[in-house]
């Protein structure tokens, strides 16, 4: 593994403006964003809706190209690669989004959905794929029966966890998580956080967690960045409260 890192260099992105800001204007979604994401490190990115968080996720995953700047993985400029050239990195850098239906085909069974990632991105045999998928389901305490039903008949929370397992199944080094906890109640949210922490301990995956939730960020990440109107404006490290403070607040 070594000491890899993803370096985000002066990343900027804008989109054609909407009616409110006038014709021909451009909406600046990201403005010269710079940070380093070292292998093994987990970062939370917090910000209000519209602050550019999802744009950042899409650029890190090569789903869109920046207007300027670059995302470098161990020296390779990922932003300059074609979709084809991105493929070998897809296994290393995975993403899960709030809306699981973007990754999962609702009409196919959960198993077919899970297997597709392994088939495309690894050279596992059919039997190895089955063993891997069933192992993950067991490890994350999801019933094996769920694999047989079409994804659309699963609950939102189950779909979210399945999309997460699908991404984890290829053993990525970097995982971008875009609002994967929103809409889950505290206890389900905690189950997902535990899954992630557990996996990180076992495989050393690094997370970039995009979230509104300071609590989830605190549990998940080593440090935290604040995105405001497309710019990184603050960063945070953890500070433990003393017991006395905990009681009085």
């Amino acid at each position, binding site marked *: 593994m070594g000491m890899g890192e993803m370096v985000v260099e002066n990343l900027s992105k804008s989109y054609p403006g909407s009616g409110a800001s006038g014709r021909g204007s451009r909406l600046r979604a990201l403005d010269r964003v710079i940070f380093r994401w070292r292998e093994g490190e987990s970062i939370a990115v917090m910000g209000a809706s519209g602050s550019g968080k999802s744009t950042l996720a899409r650029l890190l995953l090569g789903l869109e190209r920046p207007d300027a700047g670059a995302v470098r993985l161990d020296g390779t400029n990922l932003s300059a690669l074609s979709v084809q050239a991105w493929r070998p990195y897809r296994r290393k850098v995975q993403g899960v989004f709030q809306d699981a239906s973007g990754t999962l085909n609702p009409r196919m069974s959960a198993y077919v959905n899970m297997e597709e990632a392994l088939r495309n991105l690894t050279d596992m045999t059919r039997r190895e794929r089955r063993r891997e998928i069933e192992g993950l389901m067991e490890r994350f305490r999801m019933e094996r029966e769920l694999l047989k039903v079409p994804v659309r008949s699963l609950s939102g929370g189950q779909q979210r966890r399945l999309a997460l397992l699908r991404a984890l199944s290829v053993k990525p080094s970097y995982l971008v998580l875009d609002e994967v906890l929103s809409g889950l109640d505290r206890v389900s*949210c905690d189950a997902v956080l535990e899954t992630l922490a557990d996996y990180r301990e076992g495989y050393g995956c690094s997370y970039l967690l995009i979230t509104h939730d300071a609590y989830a960020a605190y549990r998940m990440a080593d440090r935290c960045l604040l995105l405001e109107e497309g710019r990184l404006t603050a960063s945070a490290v953890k500070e433990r409260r003393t017991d006395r403070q905990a009681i009085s607040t």
Partner: protein
Amino acid sequence: MAILKLDRLAVTAAGGRMLLRGVSLQVRLGEAVGVTGESGSGKTTLLKAAMGVPGKGCSVSGGSIELDGRRLEGLAPGERRLLAGTSLGFIPQLPMTAFDARIEVGRQMRAIFRKRLGLSRAAASELAREKLRQANLPDADRVLASRPGALSGGMLQRTTIAILLGLQPSYVLADEPTSALDPDNREAVVRLLLQMKSASAGLLIVSHDPEVLERLCDRVLVLHDGELVEQGSMAELLARPRRGWTRRFAATALQQREGEWAWERW
């Protein structure tokens, strides 16, 4: 008698499934009552029933809902609408659902204030501006001129609250009012709810956010499968959770307090 009172309320879904199995609770003026519990335990059903509008296909199959001595469960839709806003206010989880996406926020606010409070056009506009500023939306003119889709979720949620600050309903029911918001907007919404409470509105708040429940609510009720299974102050629930879900909830709430981010501006 100023009180919002549910007495052994039962709600049944279209297929005959019981969503609420005899829930009793009371909210007095100036008091905040929290309701929590796992997804599917009946929290939203409870709020809808308390609003007098049980969800699609659902009906009140037992018990009663009483607002200041008046029974709500049998009211005709027209009579119920008269209560909306001035007697009972509602804050949804996703504020977008409270607005018409095609019409500027200002027109919608004015229409509500004119209709509910009998104000002139000019007075309604003035009130809208004043209440938006009170809800920490200093650029009131921009908010008024925008369609709902052009505002962030946090700004819209504050706008919903600005409307309620104008109408001053006796009771406010809120469904996960902070769960879709970023930390700054969340804090702003908590403060506005505290303001309403100290202006002696009665609040009934469904939430999973331990901080919201603790800072706002005098009592917290835990729903499980349509029944109230535990209640107490948030501090009591955290100290002595009895059932499985409440125990896990308490554990995460306590963990949440173990530390926080120390921010540094760049």
